[in-house]
């Protein structure tokens, strides 16, 4: 087993061609609290990266800054592979999945998934086959006409994922998407997410506070510490995909969990 000692994250030796690079990213709020200090990170194309850390370590803040929601106080975030607008803003295509499903309660499942395409001025007729396809991928092909309130928590999250992927984004940002779900549902959604990601060429940045979830899903775990939020370790999970229940029961999985837990504990003491 190849193991990487917890180390500072800059210039990770294993990242593929970076799709996003963060240099000295710092976020200070108006009231003086520093949410993030000097974060250096390079996210490789097609990577599945988890941001893991205790609450208050700024992992969600970091995800939102990457998405362009909110101003950076210092440092910069670059998208080296992405075309830029005349005003210098990256024309990136991002999908975002929030901790809550964040669906429009007045709209059907179909219309909820249609929203991003509608905003890109795609007609309903043009979008219909794409939406059907996306709903099939998340196992909801028969629920296009249902309203969110008629769905269980896990199903709502599936709709949210389908909406996040509907524009075929190059990066999917997920902010503790399964934290509010029961364990059985979470396991199934983990497997389904991996199945959708496998073989495709999009990048996932996945915020979580679960060591087990991050080890199972990611090929790289960025451990963060709190007060101020910063990167404290960058661990590669060198385990081939597809991963299955067998991996979850293997001793390698346990070793990784122990390693990541140790890195996490180090940041908290």
């Amino acid at each position, binding site marked *: 087993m190849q193991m990487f000692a917890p180390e500072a994250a800059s210039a990770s030796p294993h990242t593929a061609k970076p799709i996003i690079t963060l240099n000295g990213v710092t976020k200070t709020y108006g009231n003086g609290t520093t949410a993030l200090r000097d974060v250096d990170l390079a996210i490789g194309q097609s990577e599945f990266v988890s941001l893991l850390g205790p609450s208050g370590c700024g992992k969600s803040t970091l995800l*939102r800054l990457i*998405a*362009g*929601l909110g101003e950076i106080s210092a440092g910069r975030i670059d998208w080296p592979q992405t075309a830029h607008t005349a005003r210098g803003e990256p024309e990136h295509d*991002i999908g*975002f999945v*929030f901790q*809550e499903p*964040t669906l*429009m*309660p*007045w*709209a059907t499942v179909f219309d909820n998934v249609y*929203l*991003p395409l*509608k*905003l*890109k001025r795609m007609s309903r007729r043009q979008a219909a086959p794409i939406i059907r396809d996306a709903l099939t991928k998340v196992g909801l092909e*028969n629920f296009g006409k*249902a*309203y*969110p*309130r*008629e*769905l*269980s928590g896990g*199903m709502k999250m599936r709709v949210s994922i389908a909406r996040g992927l509907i*524009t075929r984004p190059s990066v999917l940002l997920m902010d503790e998407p399964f934290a509010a779900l029961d364990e059985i549902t979470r396991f199934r959604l983990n497997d389904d997410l991996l199945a959708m990601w496998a073989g495709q060429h999009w990048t996932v940045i996945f915020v979580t506070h679960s060591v087990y979830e991050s080890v199972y899903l990611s090929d790289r775990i960025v451990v963060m510490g709190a007060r101020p939020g910063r990167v404290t370790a960058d661990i590669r999970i060198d385990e081939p995909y597809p991963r299955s229940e067998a991996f979850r029961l293997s001793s390698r999985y346990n070793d990784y969990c122990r390693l990541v837990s140790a890195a996490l504990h180090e940041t908290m003491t």
Partner: protein
Amino acid sequence: MSEAPIQHPPDIYGQVLKVALPLLVGAIFLIVWQIVVTTLGVPKFVLPAPTLIWQALIGNFWSLMGSLWFTLTVTVEAFIAAVIGGVALAVLFAQSRWIATAFFPYAVILQVTPVVSIAPLIIIWVGYDNVRLALLILAWLVAFFPILSNTTLGLRSTDHNLRNLMQLYGASRWRVLTEIQFPGALPFILAGMKISGGLSLIGAVVAEFVAGSGASTGLAWRIIEAGNRLDIPRMFAALGLLSVLGILIFGVMSLIEYLALRHWHESAVRREN
């Protein structure tokens, strides 16, 4: 959960009771009223029997219907103007906190000043030969505030993450308004409309009472007229018509609310438990 949402068999017994029970109470009330008035010999200029009121209604049918129509149209026009004005102003307020901060106090002043006290002024301004317009303005003044304040609240209550999502997809302010803010505010707007519907009727009637001249021909004027002549049965007939009008407006607003929200909003969704 793979099964389709459960369909309820219509509860016919419950539906019938819901209508029949209040009607029964009303019928008993009228019968007791009739008996008490006739056996005690109460003079009809104090409390007329229901049969007398009915006769007054039939006897003055066309003049009362004309007045009903007058009051109804003033109410509906004021209400529509209130909805348009209230929603438009709320949308404006939602665009900028500064606009809201600058103008909201004046909307409140308009609301808290009793309509009766400004009625004479408005009537002088638009002229005594133009009382209908004065009634319209006064009814509008009373009706528009609930729509303004409810819509403002609704537009501000948008799910923060949905807003972020719109920002992520580069949605314009207009798209944010039409795609998420407005549909999300709909329950608030409808609640405001329900209050406003009743208030426009009250505004139309109160304003007519103040105007009080022969130029107005609404139900309020019929009540004043009947009162002056001590024609109490006719007064009651006009009063009854006003109540019916109010109930009608409330019923229509409730129906619109139900139809608009039945699929998704907690207030309109039927629950198992």
